[in-house]
């Protein structure tokens, strides 16, 4: 390929690439911009893109009027809690399946995957009734438990694919070298498994943070995470675009940053290792 042609090509693709990227990202950008407008500017026609009176008052209002911090805390507690709980249950299981597989290991993995494919509405009624009867409706504990179960198959699978990449040879070498099971875990397995565990944690926090079926159906106010809180803006307050934008920006910003770090793991995690 000729040099000049490839340089021109590169410039052309730079323009197209940035234009497309901008378009796809625009709704998010627009939300962030609107969050700094006054309510009047937010609905102004023609729209104001950059040259308006920037204000941070929406962020203050969102917190003072709606106890925003509590919902943020709920989101953090539920997503982090369910992920950590899931890891606690999944790490031993994934380890066992990766390092001492039996003929049934594959079936177990496949079965776990199939539970993930169970549509939520299939179990909505009994879960709702059980939650009602056990007083778990609108409780952080209840939501954490449900999200743990929802994401457990993904956690097991992700960990399994990571653990399987650790050569069994190395663990055998450690055993030949006289390491007990405990020392094998501390000195050899953990240092090699930590990156995989961290990626799994990251992706599952994201998934739990954005989960919007169970959180909407099982929480109302006290335990409502951000998903449910934002949904409340759909009714009358929906007209307060600037405040909606401020609340939305706060809700998506942390997870967007985490997501950008987790982009590689996303593929592996959501395809159950089918695409790497």
């Amino acid at each position, binding site marked *: 390929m000729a040099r000049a042609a490839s340089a021109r090509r*590169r*410039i052309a693709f*730079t323009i197209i*690439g*940035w234009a*497309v*990227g901008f378009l*796809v*990202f625009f*709704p*998010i950008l627009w939300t962030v911009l*609107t969050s700094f407008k006054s309510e009047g500017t937010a609905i102004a026609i023609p729209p104001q893109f950059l040259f308006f009176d920037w204000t941070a008052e929406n962020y203050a209002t969102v917190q003072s009027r709606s106890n925003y911090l509590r919902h943020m805390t709920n989101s953090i507690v539920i997503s982090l809690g369910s992920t950590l709980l899931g890891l606690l*249950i*999944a790490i031993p299981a994934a380890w*066992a399946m990766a390092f*001492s597989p*039996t003929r049934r290991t594959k079936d*177990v993995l*496949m079965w*776990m995957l*199939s*539970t993930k*494919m*169970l*549509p939520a*509405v*299939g*179990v*909505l*009624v*009994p879960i*709702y009734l059980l939650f009602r009867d056990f007083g778990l409706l609108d409780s952080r504990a209840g939501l954490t438990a449900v999200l743990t*179960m929802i994401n*457990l198959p993904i956690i097991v699978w992700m960990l399994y694919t990571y653990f399987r990449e650790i050569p069994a040879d190395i663990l*055998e070498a450690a055993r030949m070298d006289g390491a007990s099971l405990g020392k094998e875990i501390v000195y050899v397995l953990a240092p090699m498994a930590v990156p995989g565990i961290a990626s799994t944690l990251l992706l599952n926090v*994201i998934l739990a943070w*954005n989960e*919007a*079926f169970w959180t*909407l159906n099982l929480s109302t106010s006290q335990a409502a995470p*951000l*998903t449910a809180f934002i*949904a409340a803006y*759909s009714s009358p307050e*929906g*007209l307060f*675009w600037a405040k909606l934008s401020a609340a*939305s920006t706060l*809700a*998506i910003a942390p*997870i*967007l940053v985490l997501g*950008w770090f987790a*982009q590689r793991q*996303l*593929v592996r995690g959501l395809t159950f*290792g*089918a*695409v*790497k």
Partner: protein
Amino acid sequence: MATLHTRASARLMMAPAVILLLAWMIVPLGMTLYFSLLRYNLLMPGMESFTGLGNYVYFLTDPAFGTALANTLLLVGGVLAITVIGGTGLALLLDQPFFGRGIVRLLVIAPFFVMPTVSALVWKTMLMHPVNGLFAWIARSLGFAPVDWFADLPLLSIILIVAWQWLPFATLILLTALQSLDEEQKEAAEMDGAGAVSRFVYIVLPHLARAMTVVVLIETIFLLSVFAEILVTTNGGPGVQTTTITYLVYMQALLQFDVGGASAGGIVAVVLANIVAIFLIRLIGKNLDR
């Protein structure tokens, strides 16, 4: 490695995960199955009675069911078409070297990390609002009449929102697959006299076929459960124009408190999802044997 000692401890280590998931699957599903055979409404406590397949007959013959099934298929099919085609295009674009490619990739995948309620509300209000929305302004500036998205094209509006959320997923997976394509294969094809289009059709597309299948199957699993986007935008309306199976079951359960009917609907949804799941599980299982 597979000594007796480790095998016994392996079972022990798997037990919590297996038992919990088993309980999570069997208990509620069993209850759903049981409720689906009862006449059972929360507004009429103590009136439960066995009704056999009555709920199923009622659910399946409800005219809303036909609409909901069609809506579900349209939603899933529409989003799949947009994301797979758009995702392939974006993946091909992001596979080209250009300045700032890394940043553009971050921009493109960002929508996936936006929670469904936020993206639905942002699209509904600030973009698709018939008067103050950005789309309306663009249409008027170009001399067209603005579209009242949620009144005139409610299902399409939801399809667009959901497709925007899932476009990054398809892009990222197809891009990953694209980058795993052996460069020498493309060069060999070039030596064999294949032009850019033939190279795409004969080399790239077959290579992407597997990844596309994965995208289709996994998205289908998630799209069958689309809920928040409908709840915060149309509430299933106008009428039942945007009611999907998932939403129909939700309405029966938590708005009409018809436990029996909702359970029957839930079982129908499970059966529908299983049809897709069988294919997906087979595909992933094949991959596991590697």
